[in-house]
């Protein structure tokens, strides 16, 4: 029969498990094991295992929703580094993304941009394949049916607007994903700002490398405004790998930026 003491402890550990439901099972289990040991040690130090003593221990521990996600996050990042565990690195990125609506939005936006690039390449490859049968055409319109001049005037403005929105989302993302205990609000703001810059810089480098890789491999050629030629054979060349690496960097910029951000020391981030 479960005692009242066990019930209170299980309720608390149940809340802890729910707060950790997005992290990998091994990290969640280890976090729970450590908190369970803390509770037992605290009860033993009080010399009494009563419900009153347990409630006092849990009150002093604080709400699991407040501290458990940060514990698990650092453990996953740590394992990702120490063991070169891709599973933990991806897990911590997924956790970050799902922990904040803005984070999820950023990953979604980057994911959509990524999907667009992939779709463009796929469309290009399909077009090249069609050329093999009917070798009349030599390119495809990125936005077929859209006149060039409106696209060239409205397009850059839309791009600037989209960049602004993206910057805002990334700002929200890093602001909410910032770790606890950095050493004051000023330092936390500086950390968020630095991490935002890192993400944007990585994304920009990724885009430039993607374009450079594609152009150097002669897999992508801009033949005229809004007209891109994609050569499927060239996209399989070693030089094209540089482009793929850039694409990966672009897509993973929010993740890498945040992981690098966690390595920034307080005194380096602060003013």
């Amino acid at each position: 029969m479960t005692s009242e003491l066990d019930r209170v402890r299980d309720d608390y550990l149940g809340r802890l498990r729910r707060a950790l439901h997005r992290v990998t099972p091994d990290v969640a289990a280890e976090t729970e094991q450590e908190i369970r040991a803390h509770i037992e040690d605290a009860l033993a130090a009080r010399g009494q295992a009563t419900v009153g003593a347990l409630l006092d221990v849990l009150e002093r521990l604080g709400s699991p929703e407040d501290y458990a996600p940060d514990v698990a996050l650092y453990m996953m990042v740590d394992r990702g580094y120490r063991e070169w565990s891709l599973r933990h690195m991806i897990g911590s990125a997924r956790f970050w993304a799902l922990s904040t609506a803005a984070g999820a939005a950023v990953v979604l936006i980057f994911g959509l941009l990524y999907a667009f690039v992939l779709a463009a390449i796929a469309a290009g490859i399909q077009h090249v394949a069609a050329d093999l049968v009917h070798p009349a055409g030599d390119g495809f319109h990125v936005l077929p049916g859209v006149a060039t001049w409106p696209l060239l005037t409205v397009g850059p403005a839309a791009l600037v607007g989209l960049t602004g929105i993206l910057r805002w989302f990334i700002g929200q993302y890093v602001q909410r994903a910032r770790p606890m205990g950095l050493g004051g609000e000023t330092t936390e703001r500086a950390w968020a700002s630095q991490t935002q810059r890192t993400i944007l810089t990585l994304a920009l480098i990724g885009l430039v490398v993607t374009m450079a890789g594609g152009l150097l491999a002669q897999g992508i050629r801009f033949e005229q405004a809004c007209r891109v030629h994609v050569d499927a054979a060239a996209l399989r060349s070693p030089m094209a790998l540089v482009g793929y690496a850039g694409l990966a960097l672009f897509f993973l910029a929010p993740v890498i930026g945040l992981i690098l951000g966690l390595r920034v020391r307080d005194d380096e981030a602060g003013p």
Partner: protein
Amino acid sequence: MTDDDKWMAQMRRGSLELCVLAILARGRRYGYDIVQALSGADGFVIKEGTIYPLLNRLRSEGLVDAEWQPSPQGPDRKYYALTRQGEARLSAVRDQWRIFADDIARILEGDA
């Protein structure tokens, strides 16, 4: 939370890491043990659970190591110990802290 409490929270957060490193410099310890050592300074740790994100952050920075060991009573404990990098960090920050504290004391006393 009053303005005084906010001031205290700011000061606490900035110095907690240094205190944890200093405690671990005396030997390896587990989570509750560290909290107990900190409890000597009145109100240093408001919520004990917040010590664990800090310990894991120090670990992810390579300043401390952690290892599970059996406990003479109850479940296994996770022991934390300073790494060489942690010792070097503590040494550097401790010296700076002393200079910083002396400067603050001088300003508060009105000597500066």
